[in-house]
């Protein structure tokens, strides 16, 4: 159950060939939550997208062990056992909430709640038939979070998940995360507001090295420039 182990070693993240942060070292087990904090532009989103497999790391490795991928083999990479919820909701506005979720259930595969149950869990009971575009910002976010429940994945990677949620929904979502952790999953979330988790681990992203240098004297070191230019 608590076999899940994520190990990040020497991970340098970046956009294009520009280094944004790193190298990072980290180990996360089942039942643990990691909160990524830091000022705007520190690289939180960049880190989460790298973990989700959407950006190539500039250096370093991410390994997972101890869990099965949905296809029954032991998992070999983080993306195949993870859910990623980014800034965008990944739902078609003109399609009904239920059809949207049913599509993702079929596409993602694996065991999970039914559409109605997962909508109930995020506090949108009986809205399955409405076109997604007709929901308010917070309701859209909640429908998109329902995707976490509709196909089971041990790891949740969440980028500001509670951005548009009202207080009641934030509490409800904190409960969902607690359940997920209790069942041996883990959560990696970037946020600017408290998420209501009990004793999460925290990764505070420092302002980039260049930023410190800038504060110290306004110049950018050759090494930083070279890293930014991304030449060999």
């Amino acid at each position, binding site marked *: 159950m608590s076999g899940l182990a994520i190990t990040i070693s020497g991970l340098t993240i970046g956009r294009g060939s520009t280094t944004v942060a790193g190298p990072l070292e980290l180990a996360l087990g089942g039942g643990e939550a990691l909160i990524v904090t830091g000022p705007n532009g520190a690289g939180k989103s960049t880190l989460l997208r790298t973990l989700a497999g959407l950006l190539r790391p500039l250096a370093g490795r991410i390994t997972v062990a101890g869990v099965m991928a949905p296809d029954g083999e032991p998992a070999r990479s983080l993306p195949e056992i993870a859910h990623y919820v980014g800034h965008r909701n990944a739902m078609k506005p003109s399609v009904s909430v239920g059809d949207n979720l049913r599509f993702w259930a079929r596409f993602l595969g694996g065991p999970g709640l039914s559409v109605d149950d997962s909508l109930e869990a995020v506090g949108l009971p009986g809205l399955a038939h409405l076109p997604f575009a007709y929901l308010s910002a917070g309701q859209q976010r909640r429908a998109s979070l329902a995707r976490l429940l509709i196909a089971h994945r041990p790891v949740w990677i969440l980028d500001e998940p509670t951005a548009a949620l009202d207080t009641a929904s934030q509490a409800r979502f904190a409960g969902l995360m607690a359940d997920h952790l209790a069942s041996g999953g883990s959560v990696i979330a970037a946020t600017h507001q408290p998420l209501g988790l009990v004793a999460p681990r925290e990764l505070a992203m420092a302002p980039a090295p260049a930023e410190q240098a800038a504060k110290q004297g306004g110049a950018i*070191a*050759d090494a930083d420039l070279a890293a930014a230019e991304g030449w060999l």
Partner: protein
Amino acid sequence: MQNDYFGFIASAYGISALLLAGLALWIVLDARAQRRALAALEEKGVRRRSSAARPENPS
């Protein structure tokens, strides 16, 4: 004979000279614009630490 073809030959050479000159001008102007952009950045304080010591020569 010579006269009949003069127009063709002249226009072939003329257009070629014109286009090539245009290309060269564009490339040179672009080079200058990039150098100027770099200078503007450095002026704004985005400076390389070593550039103060050793003048760069992107001539």
